[in-house]
Structure formats: structure tokens, C-alpha cells
């Protein structure tokens, strides 16, 4: 069998404008865990060796390089580690279906404010939040990873569109601040 090389959608692209950094990041395996009716206890047991549990709505947790993100009712994404054998859940590999963009810098929140119809200011969206919302017309999962840092998950097929939207908004915010670009 030929050895296949995994390639990301944007080839690890990055840019920095006006103190805001936008970069594609590699997050490793992404597994969707959809809990089946009555499967809550079995899933909790299966996740225990990782030190993780199913997250509350709008949140994510991290432990030793593994991250679990709320992505819907009775559903989460396990990211960065191979998924252990789980009873009580429908488990699917989503690794090549998503692109993750990291947006950071003091004005990152202003960039997202132009595209996202949700309040992402620190007071309303503290570190550890994971929101399913939209970036313009794209569905996205937005993680608050730091006071000035976000990760934005979009469908891989939307990677270049998402990049374009965020790049344009970043330039606009920089121009407004009078930063020479």
C-alpha cells in the first residue's frame, strides 16, 4: 500500500498585520463523539483514562495535549489524541474534514466582531468557551484559547473562504487603527 502524506488545506499559511496573527494550525486527529441514548455512563468511563469528560455546552477542556470540545447536544470533538474505544457513542473520524485557524493579538476580538454575530469580548466569552456560531455565512466552532487568542474551526472545504474573510477583516481593523500595512 502506498504511503499517503496528509496535507492541510492551507499548507500551514500564516500572516501578521497590525499586531494580529492569523495562522493555520495542525491539531492532529479530530474524532466526533455522539452519545447514544443511555450511553452517558459508558462514554464517561471510556474517556476517564484521558482525564477528560463530556464538556458542558459552550465549553472545552484540555488535558496533556488532548482537547475535548462541545459541538452540540450530546456531542463533542476529541482533538489531538487517538480516540479510545468507546461504548455508548457513535464515533467518527473527522480529522480531514476540518481546518483550524488561530487568530491572536489584542485586536483579534475586533476582527471577529466584524464577522461573528456573537459577543466574543472577554467578559461575555472567557477562556475555555467553545461556541458554535457563524463566521459570515460559514458555520464555525470558535474556541477562546486565551485572553487575546482564538481558534476557529471551519469545514475544510471552506478553508480558503474563511482565510479570505479573516484576512480582509484583519486588514480593515489595522487600517482603522491607523497602522501602516
Amino acid at each position: 500500500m502506498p504511503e499517503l502524506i496528509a496535507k492541510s488545506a492551507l499548507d500551514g499559511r500564516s500572516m501578521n498585520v497590525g499586531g494580529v496573527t492569523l495562522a493555520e494550525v495542525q491539531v492532529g486527529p479530530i474524532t466526533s463523539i455522539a452519545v447514544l441514548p443511555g450511553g452517558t455512563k459508558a462514554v464517561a468511563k471510556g474517556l476517564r483514562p484521558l482525564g477528560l469528560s463530556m464538556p458542558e455546552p459552550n465549553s472545552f477542556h484540555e488535558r496533556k495535549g488532548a482537547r475535548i470540545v462541545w459541538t452540540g447536544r450530546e456531542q463533542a470533538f476529541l482533538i489531538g489524541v487517538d480516540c479510545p474505544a468507546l461504548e455508548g457513542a457513535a464515533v467518527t473520524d473527522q480529522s480531514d474534514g476540518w481546518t483550524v485557524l488561530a487568530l491572536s493579538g489584542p485586536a483579534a476580538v475586533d476582527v471577529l466582531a466584524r464577522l461573528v454575530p456573537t459577543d466574543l469580548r472577554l467578559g461575555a466569552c472567557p477562556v475555555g468557551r467553545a461556541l458554535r456560531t457563524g463566521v459570515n455565512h460559514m458555520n464555525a466552532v470558535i474556541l477562546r484559547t486565551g485572553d487575546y487568542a482564538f481558534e476557529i474551526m471551519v469545514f475544510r472545504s471552506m478553508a480558503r473562504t474563511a482565510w479570505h474573510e479573516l484576512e480582509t477583516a484583519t486588514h480593515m481593523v489595522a487600517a482603522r487603527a491607523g497602522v501602516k500595512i
Partner: protein
Amino acid sequence: MRLTCPLCGERDRREFYYYGAEDYLHRPGEGASLAEWDSYLHLRDNVAGVVRDLWYHEAGCAQWLVVTRNTVTHEISGVELVAERAK
């Protein structure tokens, strides 16, 4: 207009899609009369006051919601998950 999704919290109208009256949840059973099907598919009251609608949180958690709202005052008095109601 903002709706408070039971899972996601208060969100903008842009994240939601309107489907129609709550009546769509009450599909007639097998062998129902033509009159019942006619009512289910077509007959709606045009209420000035409290109505119950189906909305879909398409740019959010992808849950169907029953929204209770007042067409006169625009007050939204309830948002429930369809999935939780079925339990």
C-alpha cells in the same frame, strides 16, 4: 431580534431559520382522514397574539426549537428544544 437557545444561550436572529407553526410537530397518524391531513398541511390561524413556531438553530447547535412569541408585542416568552420535549 434575539432568541435564547436552551443550549447556546442568547443568540442573534441571523443564526436561526424559521420553519413554520408548531403544528408541524403533530403529524397525523397512519390512516388519518383527508381532512386531518388538509388541516396539518394547510390550515393555519393568523393570530394577533401568542404563537408557537418551529425554528432551527442552523448557525449554532443545529437543534430544532419551539419558540413562543407574541406577534403584537414581539415578546419572546419561551424557547424549548424539540428533542427534549419528545422524551
